[in-house]
């Protein structure tokens, strides 16, 4: 049997690396903040992947939360991150429960397609309801306070970066514990043989619903951070390719560990920024090629590569 690889050393290395990078290269701070926000959403995708289900619509929950933050922040009294973050997350989780009650009955392609359908419906509502959402122009988010303190631009960016990083690490830890709990272990049962799960006295629908609501809340956390960091929300956040991106990152990072999404999101955003700068018209092509390479030659993602290296060293 394969020795389990400890999560703490690579996790600490990641945090140290990210903080160092943000200090040394200030322009990376924003990129890494977005990467952590996406990592949060990808953690949610990871939970569903454990059940063998892939959602092509989770950008929906990012968008719901981001727009909630944008709307609430218009009111100067309420524009405080301490309030905005939980509100966004709660909205996403509530919608996740509503949609989840419906989609948890479906599996595989139907599960993916229904999620896609819901996200596209919401996307077009945002786009068309111009008098409320300003359509494709999007909404500006006024600079929120942080626990009652109004910060300048640079300290504010640092604060958001810190919040994003700690939320992502915290969420990774919670997911790690959740996946080891009975409810988390049961997810694997949905993937392998659902009937067996039912015989064991567990409701597959309820197991999946819990994971689904959690994943929606995680995506909501990511969305709230994106809204606070970019300070401008547009319907494009919820386009189906954005949802595809989340699944992409999950595979890139590797679905085997909760640290996979963090590594994956950082790698993805860095490749994207560099590719977009160096090859303005072909960056999507480069991302596609990277995804193909990962699937064909390293199906367990970046985390799998790390595991292999580590396991080899331990044996030697």
């Amino acid at each position, binding site marked *: 049997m394969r020795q389990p690889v400890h999560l703490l050393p690579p996790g600490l290395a990641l945090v140290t690396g990210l903080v160092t990078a943000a200090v040394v290269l200030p322009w990376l701070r924003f990129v890494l903040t977005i990467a952590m926000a996406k990592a949060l959403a990808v953690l949610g995708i990871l939970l569903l*992947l454990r059940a*063998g289900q*892939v959602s092509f619509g989770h950008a929906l929950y990012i968008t719901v939360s981001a727009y909630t933050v944008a709307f609430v922040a218009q009111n100067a009294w309420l524009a405080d991150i301490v309030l905005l973050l939980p509100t966004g997350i709660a909205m996403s989780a509530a919608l996740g429960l509503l949609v989840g009650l*419906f989609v948890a*009955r*479906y599996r*595989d*392609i*139907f599960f*993916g*397609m*229904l999620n*896609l*359908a*819901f996200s*596209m*419906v919401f*996307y*077009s*509502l945002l*786009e*068309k*309801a111009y008098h409320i959402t300003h359509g494709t122009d999007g909404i500006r988010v006024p600079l929120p306070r942080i626990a009652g303190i109004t910060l300048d631009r640079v300290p504010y960016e640092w604060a958001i970066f810190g919040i994003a990083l700690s939320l992502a690490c915290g969420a990774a830890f919670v997911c790690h514990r959740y996946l080891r709990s009975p409810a988390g272990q049961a997810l694997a049962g949905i993937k392998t*043989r*659902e*009937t067996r799960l039912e015989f064991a006295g567990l409701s597959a629908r309820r197991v999946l619903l819990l994971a689904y609501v959690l994943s929606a809340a995680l995506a909501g956390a990511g969305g709230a951070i994106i809204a606070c960091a970019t300070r401008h929300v547009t319907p494009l956040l919820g386009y*189906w*390719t954005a949802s*595809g991106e989340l*699944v*992409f990152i999950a*595979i890139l990072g590797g679905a085997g560990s909760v640290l996979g999404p963090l590594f994956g999101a950082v790698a993805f955003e860095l490749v994207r920024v560099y590719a977009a700068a160096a090859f303005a*018209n*072909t*960056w*999507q*092509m480069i*991302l*596609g*090629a990277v*995804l*193909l390479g990962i*699937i*064909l030659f390293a*199906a367990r993602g970046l985390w799998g590569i790390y595991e292999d290296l580590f396991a080899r060293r331990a044996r030697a």
Partner: protein
Amino acid sequence: MDLLLGLALLDGLAYAAQVFMVAVGLTLIFGVMRVLNVAHGSFFAIGGYLAASIGVFIAAQKLPPALAFGGLVLSAALVGGILGSLVEALLLARIYAKEQVLQLLVTFALFMILEDVQKLIWGVQPIFEDTPVKLLGTVDVPFGDDTITYTAYQLFLLPAVAAATLVGLVLFLRRTLTGRLIVAVTLDREAATAMGIDAQKIYLLTFAFGAFLAALGGALASPTTALVPGVGTNMIVLSFAVVATAGLGKIEGAMLAALLLGIGRSIAVYFAPEFEVVVPYLIMVAVLLVRPQGLFGVVETRRV
């Protein structure tokens, strides 16, 4: 009011015909290979772009304009025969043993790559080439007390091609040897292989043919709309909805679902434009709520 309804029905019919061409290929490929091909929208878009380029070439060389119809078919054959076969042989053939999620993502990666390929070749400016529509002229359709002037291309040619595809495909699958081999692989790949059927060859054939149909849909659509980046994206999402509504792998069902969603969408275009994009999904969700396996899908017994 009546006039608008008539226009909506005619538009819906023409649109349903286009969507059907893409959806039928998608559902055929899924039925045989169990892969939901996200890149199918790219085949649609590339088919359209290539047809427009061939049309422009024919016009520039002062060749007889009627050749434009040949150009539509030629572009579809090129996309299906060359691009479709290459994709299957070089890429998909390597991943049939992997998880379904990964197979889906391979086609998603391919979609991302092909999107940029389109931009590199044809740029981001809208391209519009409508010789075939002009050639066929217009028809006056009586509708109640009014008459609607509509292009013959959209009224006759598009639905005719879609209907011919449906009938041809059903006959092909039931009556010819190759068609029956495809059905055999669909039903039980292992048993079919044990009988000596070359499943690899069937996969290649099916995928190339599915790509051909999508490209033909794109080629047929190109004279009626301007081609812009993202045209394939919208089409793929809609044909997913058609395929899921119909039930995966159901060819006749795809026609009905395409009509349902296509006409529903164009009624929305005329009467509630803000819901244009939403209506097809609402129909799909409504159908799946009542019949989780789609209109014509059968509940599959899970194999151990």
